[in-house]
């Protein structure tokens, strides 16, 4: 019942989350709440702990201490795995398989029926605008196309929550813009998105952002609110302000 309540309001909730690798603390006492249906951007420099946080939430890393819940399930949870989508930093596709074969494979992994996979595949190929390319091997696609296929594979099972780890790294500005259009559309359809990025300019697309530094959340809120509190005109400067303060506003 308690979990159900959590899920009503928050798709992701961590409490005092700590992850250590030996003596190094990658995530340090993190309290993170992502509301249902929002796009939450986790921002910070390389090594801030963003990827580690996402990997913990996807059940890929064990926590050192603290709790975390995803869609009301205590992580790690196989039940939650059926309802989340994850794109790692790499495109994470099988280059020797065609677009169609990649999508079919990931659909099968989630236990979808052949018919369901077929329906979803058509919808997703239309969504990522690659209908003509479904029989092409992934290794023959451009970088941008691979990113789009990767997004389609993570969406095949209609997840309620998407974890996107730096999905726009190495992507040209035009494609980045179209990616954000995709994310907005997904949000409209009720999907919650937790996205990490170190492009501060992308934060304006998020409903809320959190600044991460050395494994800690040093500021959190709506982008315009953060700018207002920091008294800066851009988020990069705002990040520097909060870094110097070393705490939340």
């Amino acid at each position, binding site marked *: 019942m308690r979990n159900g309540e959590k899920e009503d309001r928050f798709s992701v909730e961590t409490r005092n989350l700590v992850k250590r690798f030996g003596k190094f603390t990658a995530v340090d006492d993190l309290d993170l709440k992502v509301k249902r249906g929002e796009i939450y951007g986790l921002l910070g420099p390389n090594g801030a702990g963003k990827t580690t946080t996402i*990997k913990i939430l*996807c*059940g*890929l*890393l*064990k926590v050192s201490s603290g709790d975390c819940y995803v869609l009301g399930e205590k992580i*790690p949870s*196989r039940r939650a*795995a*059926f309802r*989340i989508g*994850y*794109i*790692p*930093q*790499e*495109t*994470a*596709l*099988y*280059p*020797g*398989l*065609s677009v169609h*074969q990649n999508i079919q*494979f*990931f659909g*099968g*992994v*989630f*236990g979808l*029926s052949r018919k369901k996979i077929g329906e979803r595949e058509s919808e997703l190929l239309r969504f990522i605008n690659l209908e003509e390319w479904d029989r092409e*091997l992934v290794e023959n696609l451009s970088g941008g196309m691979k990113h789009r296929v990767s997004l389609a*594979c*993570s969406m095949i099972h209609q997840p309620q929550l998407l*974890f996107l780890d730096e999905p726009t790294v190495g992507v040209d500005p035009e494609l980045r813009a179209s990616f954000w259009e995709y994310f907005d559309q997904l949000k409209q359809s009720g999907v919650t998105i937790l996205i990490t990025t170190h492009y501060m300019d992308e934060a304006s697309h998020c409903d809320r952002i959190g600044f991460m530094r050395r494994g800690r959340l040093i500021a959190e809120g709506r982008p315009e609110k953060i700018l207002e509190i920091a008294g800066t005109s851009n988020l990069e400067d705002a990040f520097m302000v909060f870094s110097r303060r070393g705490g939340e506003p």
Partner: protein
Amino acid sequence: MRNPRFLKVAWRIILGLRNDIRTLALMFLAPIFAMFVFGLAFSGEVEDVKVMVVNQDQGITVPVGGGQVSISQMVIDNLDPEVVVVEYAESEKEGVAAVENGNVYAALVFPPDLTANALEKIGGDTSAGDATIKLRLDKSNVNVANAITKAVSDALLKTVEQVGEEPAVSISTGEAIYGENARFIDFFVPGVLAFVVFVLTTLLTLISFVSERTSGTLDRLLATPLGPGDIVMGYATAFSLVGLIQSALLLIVGVAAFHIIIEGNVLLAFLAVAMLAVVSQALGILLSSLAKQEAQAIQFFPFIILPAFLLAGIFWPLEAIPTWLRPLSYLVPPTYTADACRSVMLKGWGLGKIWVDLLALMGFAAAFLALAMLSLKVRKD
């Protein structure tokens, strides 16, 4: 009922292989190529060795009838013509010089009065002169030297019998219990089955799994409802199937081109090969956890290929491996598959006799599968 999830993983691997002509060729043509290269070039039998004969024996004239008898000539005539190619020299010095120059591998010197002395000795004359045939060998090539020694000994034995002298003790090999008419290729093909399946499966799994780790697909898979067990079992299923196809192709070509002997139930040989494929893919997954990039995976190649090549009894029997090193052979999984396949194919043995090999393979499979799954779980810590 839906198919188990590990079958999705297996199917994905098979699709990937089907799409990749180069890897497919490597998997299925390389073993056949290896069999032809070794089968044709490395028959294991020494043939056409040049021997310089120095025949100083004058022989004797038989008192009755006036015929000529020469034991040296009889020995020369009895030399196996497939092994020895006879050339002649006038003197021992000339014969030895031919060996020293590398023109021949041995000089076979029959002394003067060999026939006379030998016959006197046979007649019981203890004061008879020397009847020793000298064989001056180039022993730098042990196989060739042994082949010449054996050919000369056989010829001598046959000659002694021809002159009517029965040795007091003789040996009868009779009909072989196993492997009548077996050639080196018959010994070799079962070994090749084990060798190629072990090496190719381990290397291919190692490389594909390092690629799963570096390309992010492993993370993506582990974030889905798939567990480490599904992934490992998927790989095991796909590569056992590949191993079976490799073995079937090898055996078909082996029978068609080399007429290899298959005495027993070939399905048992397939079983041993499939089990080895499971062991090998699990080993590949395990090793992949030690490599961060595909280039690093290449550093493992010698550690996979050399023990299988040297210790598993593929090219020579385990008995040819030094006793102190032999325990290591039993730690190399293809040893058991090679032994099981040979027992089935050459001796016609059944499950009742090869179960020890299969049990050992099952032990390796269980241990390596568990360790491979653990290596995927450990990432979570």
